[in-house]
């Protein structure tokens, strides 16, 4: 049993989810290789070589891998697939774009967003917005899957392993990237933040969303999230959406402000370690998953919380 993990990166650094994916891969296979394909990504390959549990790093350089487009990457992965029993990627947008293309090219099924490895060929994953967990067995000879990073611990650091160059596959030249816009700024990314502050429709406007939640998030170094209702209403950007069809997060602390708690939203955050909900409706479903429930007007509670946090918890 030998797994190939496809590293997610931006040519400068490994995305954190890759480390959790290595942990999952080590539970399904005895040996794990890590593929770093990109353009000018030698630093990523060097970083990948120090991930504990990895046997070797395959480093493939070519301009057509620079933008992590699915078509050239899938061609590369399929070209070396015969050496592996498992092909594995983090279940971020990039992996979810790539791995079905890999699987179909190889003529095998794909398993999306696993949260548990039950055996080398058997995995558990959420379905119906997390309202059920399906355990599925792959009947194909080669197994292609994506891993929900929040369900596995990140692999640690280790002594460097060999980095072997891999020859690029031809560029299918089917698509190209014209531009990329990353939101975020200096705020941590939703997927890797220890604390997430999320707002819902009750914020009432984009101005309120920013004015109330940004200071609260700022004083905790938290990422900002939003419910679909808040995103649809234009209070927050699309990339902030937490839920079944948005980002799945599991921070140490999730603070839901003015979010009622539709099942689609709960699907994206209910595995957070500690959940705080602030809502004026005592019957809001979000309170069903909250560790700490504060029934209050958010327009009073959030500024009070921000003020108290600034004065109280900051270490001397």
């Amino acid at each position, binding site marked *: 049993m030998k797994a190939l993990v496809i590293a997610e990166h931006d040519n400068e650094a490994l995305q954190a989810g890759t480390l959790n994916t290595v942990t999952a891969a080590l539970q399904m296979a005895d040996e794990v290789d890590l593929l770093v394909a990109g353009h000018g990504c030698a630093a990523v390959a060097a970083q990948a070589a120090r991930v504990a549990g990895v046997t070797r790093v395959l480093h493939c350089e070519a301009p057509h891998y620079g933008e992590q487009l699915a078509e050239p990457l*899938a061609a590369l992965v399929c070209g070396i697939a015969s050496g592996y029993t498992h092909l594995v990627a983090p279940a971020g947008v990039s992996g979810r774009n790539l791995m079905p*293309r890999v*699987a179909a090219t190889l003529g095998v099924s794909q*398993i999306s967003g696993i949260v548990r490895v039950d055996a080398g060929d058997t995995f558990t994953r959420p379905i119906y917005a997390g309202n059920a967990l399906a355990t599925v067995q792959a*009947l194909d000879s080669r197994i292609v899957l994506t891993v929900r990073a929040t369900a596995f611990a990140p692999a640690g650091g280790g002594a460097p392993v060999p980095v072997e160059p891999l020859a690029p596959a031809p560029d299918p030249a*089917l698509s190209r990237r014209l531009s990329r816009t990353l939101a975020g700024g200096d705020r941590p990314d939703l997927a890797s933040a220890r604390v997430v502050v999320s707002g819902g429709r009750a914020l009432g406007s984009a101005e309120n969303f920013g004015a109330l939640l940004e200071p609260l998030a700022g004083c905790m170094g938290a990422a900002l999230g939003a419910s679909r209702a808040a995103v649809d209403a234009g209070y927050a950007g699309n990339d902030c959406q937490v839920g079944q069809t948005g980002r799945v997060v599991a921070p140490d602390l999730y603070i839901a402000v003015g979010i009622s708690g539709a099942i689609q939203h709960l699907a994206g955050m209910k595995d957070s370690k500690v959940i705080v909900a602030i809502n004026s409706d005592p019957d809001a479903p979000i309170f069903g998953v909250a560790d700490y429930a504060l029934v209050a007007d958010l327009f009073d509670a959030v500024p009070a919380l921000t003020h108290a946090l600034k004065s109280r918890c900051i*270490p001397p």
Partner: protein
Amino acid sequence: MKVLVAVKRVVDHHVKVRVLVDGSDVDVASAKMSVNPFDEIAVEEAVRLREAGLASEVLVVSCGVAACQDTLRAALAMGADRAVRVETDVALQPLAVARLLHALCLREQPGLVICGKQAIDDDAAQTGQMLAALLGWPQATNASRVTLTGGRVEVECGIDGGTEVLSLSLPAVLTTDLRLNEPRYASLPGMMKAKKKPLDTVTPAQLGVDVTPGLRTVRVAEPPVREPGVRVASVEQLLACLCGEGGALRGALP
């Protein structure tokens, strides 16, 4: 240019599904069924392309039991021109659906295929990308804006932490994000017209496709339930819990 749209009949998104006591599946026998919301967005986008004179025909396809006709009629009522149902009672998995769509694409020769980015039942998010692979076409997932220009298609795609704009050669496969458009409600005349629009049926065998599942469901279980939490009376009490011994914010602040 013909546009092919794949639509799936799924449990309505308002229904909270229950796991069957024997753990074999979720109980969908009596659940209200609807068109997968992302697929409605795909139909809407295709109909808009035709209305803008950029597409000549919108063909909708659904794979499954006879009740999928309702799904197809709903798409026809929104403005699609023609429908094909692939008749099977096998519980289809994404690879099988992609292979069926592949066979239909070879027959129908569309210039663009639009799928929902995921179905809200199995949450797999695979079919569009698999179809693109089988056809050897480019793909763009999570599309929030689609522009046909100069024999190519420009697609704004949602990615982790932002957006990117891709330019694909045609033919291509796109999958839709929620932000792409707001699907119209079918009008009464639309629904009347839909009854007269052509709806053909083919079988996987006629398309030469083996739909045997590659994944076996071992069991389906309820997710773990979170321990009930506590109500706090004030911001002060909340902070005491978070910042106190063992609290989530203990030592976590910058």
